[in-house]
């Protein structure tokens, strides 16, 4: 439900995967097939000769080092910044406000309800239940609209459809309080806590 850029992830993973696979296969072929080794010598030697020629023609004025090293450094810095930007996109999408709207009254101003209202109300209501090993509520932004994600960890053997109906009643009560219907996702997860604590025997 968060704003992780999925298409971008797939494209970049595809590019990186293909490159690594090609390099790995080349290394394996170099180690095993002699014909590939002779081809590689010819190709890479000519490529490196071209690069060395370029380095020789691009001296810094008054020094013997080439300014191509600085260009290479700038390109590498750009790649690193792009990778950090990509990392920071993972799991983003938290929202602060549940409601931000103008009401119809004559008084100027805006009504804002923070996401914490719904999060704490739902968490308090869910924490009393004995058939849950844990619950967490988060407000996330979906296409510019706030939405709630309720993540609950039922104990072993709890019927999910009954639980879903009861959580859904809680959400309907919340709708009345807030005065607006927010999209809600209920996610029932299984975790170590649900697996190793005692099963719910009596309900």
């Amino acid at each position, binding site marked *: *439900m*968060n704003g*992780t850029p*999925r298409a971008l*992830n797939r*494209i*970049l*993973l*595809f590019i*990186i*995967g293909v*490159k*690594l696979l090609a*390099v*790995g*296969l080349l*290394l*394996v072929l*170099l*180690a*095993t097939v*002699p014909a590939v080794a002779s081809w*590689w010598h010819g190709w890479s*030697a000519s490529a490196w000769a071209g*690069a060395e020629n370029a380095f020789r023609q691009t001296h810094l004025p008054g*020094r013997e*080092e080439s*300014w191509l*090293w600085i260009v*290479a*450094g700038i390109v*590498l810095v750009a790649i*690193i910044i792009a*990778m950090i930007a*990509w*990392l920071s996109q*993972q*799991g983003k999408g938290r929202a602060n406000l549940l409601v931000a709207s103008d009401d119809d009254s004559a008084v100027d101003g805006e009504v804002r309800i923070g996401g914490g209202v719904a999060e704490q109300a739902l968490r308090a209501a869910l924490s009393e239940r004995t058939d849950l090993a844990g619950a967490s509520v988060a407000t996330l932004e*979906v*296409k510019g609209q706030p*939405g709630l994600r309720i993540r609950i960890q039922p104990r*072993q*053997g709890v*019927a*999910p*459809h009954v639980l*879903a*109906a009861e*959580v*859904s009643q809680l*959400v309907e009560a919340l709708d009345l309080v807030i005065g607006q*219907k927010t*999209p*809600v*996702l*209920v*996610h*029932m997860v299984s975790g170590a806590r*649900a697996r190793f604590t005692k*099963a719910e025997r009596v309900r």
Partner: protein
Amino acid sequence: MTQDQETQQVIAANFSAGATPVAGEDPGMSRILRRETHSSRAGASVIAAILVIVLCGYALLEAGVRAIGQPPWLIDPTTAAERIIALPNGISPLLLGASGAVVAMAGLFFLLHAVLPGRRARHLLRDPRTAVVVDDEVLASALARRARTAANVTQEQVMVVVSRQLVVVNVRPTSGSRVSEEAVLTAVQAELEQMSPVPMPAVRVNLATSGVIGA
């Protein structure tokens, strides 16, 4: 078939059946449900990004050291290039082949993450208000509880495996007492129909031929 079409088909099949909608009352939820039932590949992306950052950082260090005319840290770029050109020589073929295989494996890992559909082991439940996504393990533990009461055995004698299209119930009966396969099947099927997960899996019951003593 793309993920979009797939989810739309599920939701279309749902409306034609006249049942309660999968995604609550909000039509925009189908996008959220599609995202919740498929992997975001965030983990593989983080690993790949860190790998690229480390490689670029090292190359940057050597290039920077070279640009200001200082001695190299680990290896001079020119020497490195010459060694790479000479490649099958200068290193044992076994080591070269093994390192190549490791790099190729890492590449395959990222490539498969990018290409495969990345479906998560989750089902959707029908609910009039909210969109409900349930991990398959939660479904399995609820079905196991029902199968256990139907077969009248202890918790350890039942194992349920839920996959996208199939629920397999493995029961090891107590030695000396008969367990009816029919009863377990009807009980699990009734429970599954009450849950009505999307997509609806079929049920198969396996009774072990050997019993458990003293349970």
